[in-house]
């Protein structure tokens, strides 16, 4: 399964947020979109998942026009965790995760045995099974992020879209979330498309990185192709070195010292 956008232009009223955007994401791959604030990362993510209408161009879901897909059909293939999400704080964890089954249900139907099994799996794989009878408000920030990921996972998506999944989390929960994403990708073959701010994490986890600047794609490729001294200067106006450390597969970004 793949989603492919061609020559997208996305805007709000007269304001054009993104233009000339080509991007392709597929099952089994981790694609990360990076770029400065306001470069249009989240906008692209929303257009690829039909949360936002685009003005020009086309988005293809496999060979089909994305706009022609039934809402539920799309939701069975694609899970989206928006940057801002909220549920009533007194919802129970298991109930929230159960909402991920909505795309498979009629408006009147209750959870089937099959639904319950998937919910169990989503809780298990995200390590939230022990929280299932707690209320959302009783969960810590890291826990609730995993619960939300479990919710989206119970849609059984082939591609998972995560908009800044680590923002607002401390470093340990950030890494925990990244490990979870990696695990889901390796073990279940789920494709992941993320917007990340931490380039070190993007470099570490991604199969492909798309760099955006001022609403356009600056470049894309493997992490090593993309995260370079030149890109950091051009896109972020930041001086750095890309350094290798013996024993580590991926390089690190060493920013210029603050003096």
């Amino acid at each position, binding site marked *: 399964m793949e989603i492919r956008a061609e020559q997208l232009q996305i805007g709000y009223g007269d304001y054009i947020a993104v233009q000339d955007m080509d991007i392709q994401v597929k099952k089994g791959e981790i694609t990360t979109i990076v770029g400065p604030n306001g470069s249009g990362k989240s906008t692209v993510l*929303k257009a690829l*998942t*039909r*949360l936002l*209408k685009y003005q020009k161009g086309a988005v293809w879901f496999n060979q089909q026009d994305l706009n022609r897909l*039934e*809402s*539920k*059909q*799309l*939701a*069975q293939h*694609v*899970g*989206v965790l*928006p940057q*801002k*999400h*909220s*549920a*009533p*704080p*007194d*919802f*129970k964890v298991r*109930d*929230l995760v159960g*909402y*991920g089954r*909505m*795309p498979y249900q009629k*408006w*009147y139907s209750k959870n089937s045995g099959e639904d319950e099994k998937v919910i169990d799996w989503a809780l298990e794989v995200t390590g939230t099974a022990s929280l*299932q*009878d707690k209320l959302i408000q009783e969960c810590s920030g890291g826990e609730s992020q995993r619960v939300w990921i479990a919710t*989206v996972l119970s*849609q059984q998506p082939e591609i998972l879209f995560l908009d800044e999944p680590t923002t607002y989390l401390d470093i340990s929960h950030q890494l925990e979330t990244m490990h979870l994403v990696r695990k889901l990708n390796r073990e279940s073959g789920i494709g992941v498309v993320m917007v990340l701010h931490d380039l070190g994490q993007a470099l570490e986890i991604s199969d492909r990185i798309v760099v955006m600047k001022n609403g356009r794609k600056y470049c894309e490729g493997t992490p090593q192709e993309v995260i370079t001294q030149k890109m950091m200067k051009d896109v972020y106006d930041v001086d750095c070195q890309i350094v290798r450390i013996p024993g580590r597969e991926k390089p690190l970004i060493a920013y210029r010292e603050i003096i």
Partner: protein
Amino acid sequence: MKTKQKISLLRVSSVMLVLLILLGLCSVLSLAVGSAGYSIQEILKALFSQEDSPVKTIVLNLRLPRIILAILIGSSLSAAGALLQSVMRNPLADPGTIGVSAGAGTAATTILLIFPQLSASVPLFAFGGAALACVLIYTMAWKGGVDPTRIILSGVAINSVLGAYNSLLQLMNSDSLEGVLAFMNGSLSGRGWHQVQIAACYASAGLVMAFLCIKSANALQLGEEMAKSLGVKVSLNRVLLSAVAAFLAAATVSVAGMIGFVGLVVPHIARLLVGSDYKVMMPVSVVLGAVVLLAADTVGRTVVPGMEIPVGIVMAVCGGPFFLYLLRKKGKVSGN
């Protein structure tokens, strides 16, 4: 981990049970008290005797229909408020927000003051006015979909225009305001079996629809983007839920005039009692609404001997302070 689930189930059923008992007690009490007070024995004796007696007439033709009406109206308004709070994700949403009160008020004022010969059809016009105002607000708020903030803001604008028109009309006809005032301060006084029949039709249809909306109300509580990405047609659901709420509220307005606060406060209390899941919150709201309105009406017609205080006024006077109490005590009245 199963025990915790059982506890919440136990809590919900005990809340429900207590409310049903309260409803029963209030009904019996309301049958017995009034300008003429009767004991339970007297009432039972009169009801089961073949002959007509004043007790039988008063209880069967005045008090009983009024009790049933209070129950129907309280349930309908609470269900309407609960639905709207999910649509708007705003704690202040109630049937007034979407223009039901202002629309019905405008229609009723116009008929009563300008076309008094049509006064008998005020309920019909009030219903129509409420529906029209509601459609107008949603049309104005529509921009490729309906956004709660836009609904609320266009509601404020249209409510204020209609309110100004009402005030002007009242100023120009200040000598014949009796009927208008009675309508504006919703009352169950003098309503009989005829109104019960009408209200029962509306309320049963509306409440069935409200219960069918439960799953969708829950999904809307997750926020627009999340609901959309779960395959929910958000705008369609917002309009459907609002339409059901408007229907329920407009029906009550047409029967009893404008009764505020029930639709706003009862869902909040229900939420504090059993949580935000509409699967339990909706039924609790419906029963609680019935209890609250019945209690308010009973108080209104008994507290000052020889005088009827309209239930709308009792609700506002008692509801306001109680709401403030909840707000300060619990501090977790939330909009979604």
